[in-house]
């Protein structure tokens, strides 16, 4: 099967399909199931990658990063700029520096490996946070929007660190930064014009091809400058987010392409390199790193949230949500592994901690600090009185 492209593709797609079926059945995101199946396939089935799979996986990660940037509501970011920036920056900086320091000094990891650990565990998963807030009825409230805006700021820190820390400071980097700046400046207007002028001939999908062209070009330039393609992908998403907010069809098309053909290769590949024996062997370190991420997030986010007047219980809830991680954490760890900054054992530890950080803070937040009906109603500006029954309403 090793040299038969079709059979190899069929094996990977069979895993992707199985992940979808399991995901629908158990109500857990397909990404986590794909990672889990990747772990099984890597440890027991000797499934392997190929150059074309690596490309699809890399593009899948880039497209996920682009979507993460494009999903921000620019108005919400503007409205909550000060608290979101303050919470977002400390939410990135403290775990990044704390984990970097502990990995380097106490765990004895090499300089770059410790940096990768810091980046991978500094992330906040906007998608996980959003899903939890939908369940709590907070997603459309001012407080929910503030938390989401803060998550985006944290992710900016992550992609900047990933794009800048490992780049060579040379002429190529200057060229990359200059071209990126120009593209980001003209892209929103250009994208809007392409959608407006060619929107009627959508069967050939010109707007999707245009965005892919931009992502390929900037990704290529980033690679040439020894930077990382997720940086331009995220920033590109951010600058076109206003366009995406209005054109839901475009988001749907890009998401469909990503989830059907690209991200399965990325997440299964992310699981493929996780070594099960290494998980057992390094369980104490995994526990320490997870605790460190939670503590560092707490030290940063809790007091900052208090300064901006978040009530005690909702502040704890916010702090726990800001401690979640998933996509950017695995992207950072895989970047480190593929560029030989970390070993497979270190990769295993980081990915395990990232996955645990998607689940553990979420469960604690929902079990012990979830807004009470009164708090949710208060935050949403909805009456929480016996008069409420006859309001035809929907939790936002």
């Amino acid at each position, binding site marked *: 099967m090793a040299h038969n492209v079709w059979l190899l593709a069929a094996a990977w797609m069979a895993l992707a399909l199985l992940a979808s079926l399991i*995901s629908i*059945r*158990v*109500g*857990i*995101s*397909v*990404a*986590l199931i794909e990672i889990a199946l990747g772990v099984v396939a890597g440890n027991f089935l000797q499934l392997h990658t190929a150059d074309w799979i690596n490309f699809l996986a890399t593009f899948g990660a880039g497209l*996920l990063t682009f*979507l*993460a940037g494009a*999903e921000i509501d620019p108005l919400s970011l503007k409205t909550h700029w000060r608290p979101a920036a303050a919470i977002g920056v400390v939410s990135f900086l403290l775990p990044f520096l704390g984990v970097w320091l502990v990995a380097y000094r106490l765990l004895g990891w090499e300089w770059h490996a410790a940096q990768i650990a810091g980046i991978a565990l500094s992330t906040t*998963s*906007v*998608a*996980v946070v*959003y*899903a939890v807030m*939908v*369940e*709590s*009825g907070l997603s459309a409230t001012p407080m929910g929007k503030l938390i989401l805006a803060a998550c985006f700021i944290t992710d900016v820190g992550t992609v900047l660190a990933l794009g800048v820390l490992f780049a060579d400071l040379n002429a190529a980097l200057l060229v990359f930064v200059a071209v990126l700046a120009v593209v980001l400046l003209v892209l929103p207007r250009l994208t809007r014009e392409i959608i407006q002028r060619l929107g009627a001939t959508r069967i050939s999908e010109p707007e999707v091809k245009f965005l892919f062209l931009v992502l390929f070009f900037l990704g290529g330039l980033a690679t040439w400058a020894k930077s990382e393609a997720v940086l331009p992908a995220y920033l590109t998403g951010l600058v076109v987010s206003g366009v995406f907010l209005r054109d839901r069809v475009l*988001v*749907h098309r890009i*998401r469909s392409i*990503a*989830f059907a053909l690209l*991200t399965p290769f990325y*997440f299964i590949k992310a699981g493929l390199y996780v070594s099960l024996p290494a998980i057992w062997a390094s369980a104490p370190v995994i526990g320490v790193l997870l605790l460190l991420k939670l503590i560092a997030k707490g030290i940063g986010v809790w007091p900052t949230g208090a300064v901006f007047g978040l009530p005690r219980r909702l502040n704890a809830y916010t702090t726990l949500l800001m401690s979640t991680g*998933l*996509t950017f954490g695995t992207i950072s760890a895989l970047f480190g592994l593929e560029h030989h900054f970390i070993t497979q054992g270190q990769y295993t530890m980081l990915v395990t901690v990232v996955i645990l950080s*998607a*689940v553990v803070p*979420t469960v604690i937040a929902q079990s012990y600090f979830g807004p*009470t*009906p*009164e708090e949710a*109603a208060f935050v949403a500006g909805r009456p*929480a009185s*016996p008069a*409420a*029954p*006859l*309001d*035809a*309403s*929907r*939790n936002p």
Partner: protein
Amino acid sequence: MYQSIVVGFDGSDSSRRALHKAVRLAKLSGAEMLVTMVEEHLPKYPSAMSETTEEREAVDAYFAELTKEVETLGSEQDVRLGVRVAAGHPARVLCDVTKEVRADLLVIGASGRSGLWAGVLGSTADRVVDHAPCSVLVVRKGPA
């Protein structure tokens, strides 16, 4: 008899029986009704926000149809009722809504659409009976 009744409704046969039973009780006692629908199948731990939003849009469309059915039933039977759609675990949402509106009766079907988790962790009805802040009527299949 009752002043405020909450009923869980997800479109399943079992929950439809509960809805009709609750309407009859509300009519007899002159109670207000809040029909609560729970979005329970949103993906947990998603990798993109759109994974949640698009799943939710699909669920919304389904619940919009159910809302029409409920409102028609309410006006046919001359019962005052409202509809609430919320995301989360059905048992938790139903108990929270009941507490919030201070209902004196919660009506649910004996089995809904809770799927695999119900098999592992117990049914929604089991958990509601354990945690509800008021009396619970679990409606089983059989003569009305």
